[in-house]
């Protein structure tokens, strides 16, 4: 056997070492090469349509566990399915009109009932994060409750009742009919009713499920801009990447959103809110930080932190999964057929006349 010259042996050794390193690198790259789709700039491609309807409420019973056991989740989901089936059942064909004085419905249904459940698409399952069903969206504070309002915030919220948010206080003499002043001006009506923004912080930020219908969101992304389109009520939030916030004099309905990448997570920072949205009674100094991360199945993990020292005694954080869907978002041209707002204001004027007649003995 011919002896291999030393320099050749060194070359072989070097080549072998290089091959090993190359294989190792390839192997590492293989591990690092996640199934996450990426844009040309190398950042994760978060684009898609997501249906965020869920049974997971924002808060949970104080101190109860964040995670539901499989049995608990199954039971709760079964109960909801049972209720939906019950609502969908055939009813008496020869029924009479509902009772005079109202049917006892509460909330937005305002003592006159709402409409058939076939219109509703409120979700049928609890949100799954890290493979476990979640009992609440809130993860911090650990007790699962939104922190208390500061004393000043409580006073402010009390003053702002009947301002154009979703605040409602029913009149004692006519349950379902809101307090005095709530109908004095179209601009006092809630934003959803006026087709300006979805109810229940659907558009956000923070983006929350409305537990009712049209919970679809679409993300469109370029290197410079990310758009988050909300079906309900047609709001498009534009996130400017790697940009500075606008001057504090510029105030926007959904605030001013700027984005940056932290690893594979899109972090969106929003300030400059107007005082018209007032998320859960907040001021225009509301500060929201959202984190969007691709997880399995094309889904996103959505995490948000809410901060406003003028409103809450501490910051709070929530998270839930945005499941990808093949469904299409449809236009929600809310103004085109908004008979309801006119009916509501017209009804209030007639109610005033009726009340005035009662006061003057019917004359």
């Amino acid at each position: 056997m011919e002896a291999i010259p030393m320099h050749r042996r060194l070359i072989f050794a070097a080549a072998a070492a290089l091959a090993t390193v190359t294989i190792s690198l390839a192997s590492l790259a293989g591990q690092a090469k996640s199934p996450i789709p990426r844009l040309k700039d190398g950042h994760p491609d978060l684009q898609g349509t997501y249906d965020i309807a869920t049974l997971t409420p924002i808060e949970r019973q104080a101190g109860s566990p964040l995670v539901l056991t499989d049995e608990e989740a199954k039971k709760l989901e079964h109960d909801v399915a049972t209720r939906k089936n019950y609502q969908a059942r055939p009813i008496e064909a020869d029924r009479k009109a509902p009772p005079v004085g109202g049917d006892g419905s509460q909330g937005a249904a305002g003592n006159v009932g709402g409409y058939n459940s076939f219109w509703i698409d409120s979700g049928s399952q609890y949100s799954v994060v890290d493979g476990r069903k979640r009992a609440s969206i809130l993860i911090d504070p650990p007790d699962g409750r939104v922190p208390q309002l500061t004393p000043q915030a409580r006073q402010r919220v009390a003053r702002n009742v009947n301002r154009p948010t979703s605040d409602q206080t029913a009149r004692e003499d006519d349950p379902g009919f809101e307090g005095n002043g709530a109908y004095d001006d179209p601009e006092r009506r809630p934003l959803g009713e006026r087709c300006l923004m979805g109810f229940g912080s659907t558009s956000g930020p923070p983006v929350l499920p409305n537990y009712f219908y049209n919970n679809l969101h679409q993300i469109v992304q370029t290197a410079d801009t990310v758009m988050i389109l909300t079906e309900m009520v047609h709001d498009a939030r534009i996130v400017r990447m790697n940009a500075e916030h606008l001057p504090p004099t510029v105030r926007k309905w959904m605030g001013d959103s700027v984005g940056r990448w932290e690893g594979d997570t899109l972090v969106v920072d929003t300030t400059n809110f107007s005082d018209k949205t007032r998320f859960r009674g907040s001021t225009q100094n509301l500060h929201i930080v959202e984190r969007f991360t691709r997880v399995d199945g094309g889904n996103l993990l959505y995490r948000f932190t809410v901060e406003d020292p003028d409103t809450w005694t501490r910051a709070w954080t929530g998270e839930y999964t945005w499941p990808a869907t093949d469904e299409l978002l449809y236009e929600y041209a809310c103004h085109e057929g908004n008979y309801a707002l006119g009916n509501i204001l017209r009804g209030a004027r007639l109610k005033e006349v009726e009340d005035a007649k009662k006061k003057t003995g019917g004359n």
Partner: protein
Amino acid sequence: MKKIVLSVAGLLLAGVPVFGHHAFGGEFDPNKPVLLKGPVTKVEWVNPHAWIHIEVTDEDGSKKEWMVEGGTPNTLLRRGITRESLKPGTVLVIDGYQARDHSLLRANGRNVTYPDGRKLFLGSSGTGAPTDGADPTEAPKPGQRGRGGQQ
């Protein structure tokens, strides 16, 4: 947890229709309950709320067109229900409350059923409309690709 279960049970017992998101109490008069029966004349498939028009014959034989408020059409469209799914002439029975302005023949569709009591769109395996998803052998309509990615 018990509270959640109890509230679900409460809803089951009450059987109250699902509420809307706007001020139904301001729009409709709890002292003017109505029971409307008649054929559909047209449906306005518009947001924020669809309106079903039906022709109601009064006791004196006169015919009046009522408008009945429903929910968002977007949700129905995703289920394969289209503007063709509720054809003019279909007889409906509707209970609800009239608008507070009694000069308006408008009501909320608290319960909307076919004359045999089946809830609208829910009373059969399908709506009767083409591509409503009831027939698994039928090719889906473009845009009706089914719900995917749900956990």
